[in-house]
């Protein structure tokens, strides 16, 4: 799994997870969604084309696009800027676990 700052990232809040192994997009999103629910996330999806899961304690979100398989981590703005990359990294490791992928490398957190 790779992690990179999202193209529209402001102040290290948005991160993109890119799995190493390609999968069928909808199936993959559906699987990650189920795993997130199991891990205590809450489903906040409003539109079927954009799946949104939120951790009720930290308010970090994982956003999934069934159409393309895109995975976006949204770190909550209350996290101090310096800690945001690490929070994103930790969530990316969690998603890597769901997909049976190796963890992203810490040097990708730039």
């Amino acid at each position, binding site marked *: 799994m790779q992690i990179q700052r999202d193209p529209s990232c402001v102040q290290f809040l948005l991160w993109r997870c890119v799995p190493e192994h390609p999968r069928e997009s909808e199936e993959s999103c559906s699987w990650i969604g189920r795993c997130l629910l199991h891990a205590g996330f809450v489903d906040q999806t409003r539109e079927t084309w954009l799946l949104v899961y939120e951790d009720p304690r930290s308010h970090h979100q994982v956003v999934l696009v069934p*159409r393309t398989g*895109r995975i976006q981590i949204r770190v909550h*703005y209350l996290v101090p800027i310096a800690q945001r990359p690490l929070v994103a990294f930790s969530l990316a490791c969690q998603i890597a676990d769901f997909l049976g992928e190796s963890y992203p490398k810490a040097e990708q957190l730039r």
Partner: protein
Amino acid sequence: MTVQIKKEELFSVLPEHAFAFFADTPVVYHCHHYNLWLDQTIDDALGTREGMALRTRTAHEAFYHYLAQLVPRSGADTPAEKLKVAELIFAAMGHGNLRLHTQAQGGLATGDFLHYGYTWKEKYGEKVRRRHTADAVAAGCAVAATEIAFDLPMGTLDVAEETCVSLGAPQCRFQIEGAKQPMPPSRPVGKRETQRLLGDSFSGKHEEQIRAITTGLRSFLGTINSDERGLVQGFGVFVTLHLASYYNGISYNALYNIERTAPQSFDVMQGLLVEAGHQCGFNTFGGILRSPEWEGLVGAPTGDPLEILIGCCAIGRALGFGQWTIQDFAPDKHFVLRTPGTYESTYHVTRHGLASSGRCYLHQGGTLAAVQLAHRVPWREKPTFDQAFYRSLFHSDPQWRFQETHCVSKGDDYCEVAVERIRK
């Protein structure tokens, strides 16, 4: 009694003209890049003191007319309830948390995460030191809300921002007191005034695709709520639902002031107003096109220029900029965008009459930005839409030139911007 703002009842659109209204007041979505740039341009034109005075006065007037429409429909009865409505609606529009501790004779208002001061600090705080307060819009809303709450005529009170987060203060504070000078009366430019000016709408090329995306985007925008800070952070920008009268009021008053007092600067002022639109188009449209929301709704951008322009027309409509239609397009050569009207031209004709040339600066800058997005962004490389990227593209070598060939402000039936490749 509990005050309630029924957003779905108060929000309306004229879908054929792509104008949006809240409580029959023209509103439009804009990002912090546009908001900050426009305010800065006003200060550059008039000087900080005069600029701030104009911005505050215009916000005062715009919010007075707006709240005069909105508060009676909210069920608010007492002054405290009316002040609460103003606080709620201000936050719901993405302007931050404003607290009004005021009486009929004035008092104190405080602000946390106010859009202008907070986003200025986020965007520029590490680069330059600010020397004056930033929240004319919050100031205007605070004083207007107090007047509405206590049934006072507009201009009874005056306001000054005393501390501001953009200057390093922990909180913004506003002092409201009796006005020393009367404020000239003004009539609102509302839904009725806007509709009166609108001719028949029309369509352009690829209309079905644009229409379908617009519908999806409008529906999605309707679900977006501000966060606990009273801010809307999405697509890599801070978004506000704003009063069109504020933008138009400050732009045209400052522009005509410059025409009178420093005519040699008229063109450069127009250029900076266009730059505001360009920054809006590039950052907000670009952010939306790169967002998971867009990817889910439309698909990831492939880099096909036509596809980007179709997307931009849909975004322009959904944000309330007007019925953006594609009249002509040849990749890498030219692009013609036409709309039956813009929120700028309808205001201009109502308040300032006819002009000698086009006056839709957001429309000009936004159209140019759409073309730049279509041709100069390597979409497949997933570029980061940040300040460095913006500078790298636009610091030199403009590549495209534009002209507002038609404008309702100068008596035409529609507004049209033509963009053409510069050949060397």
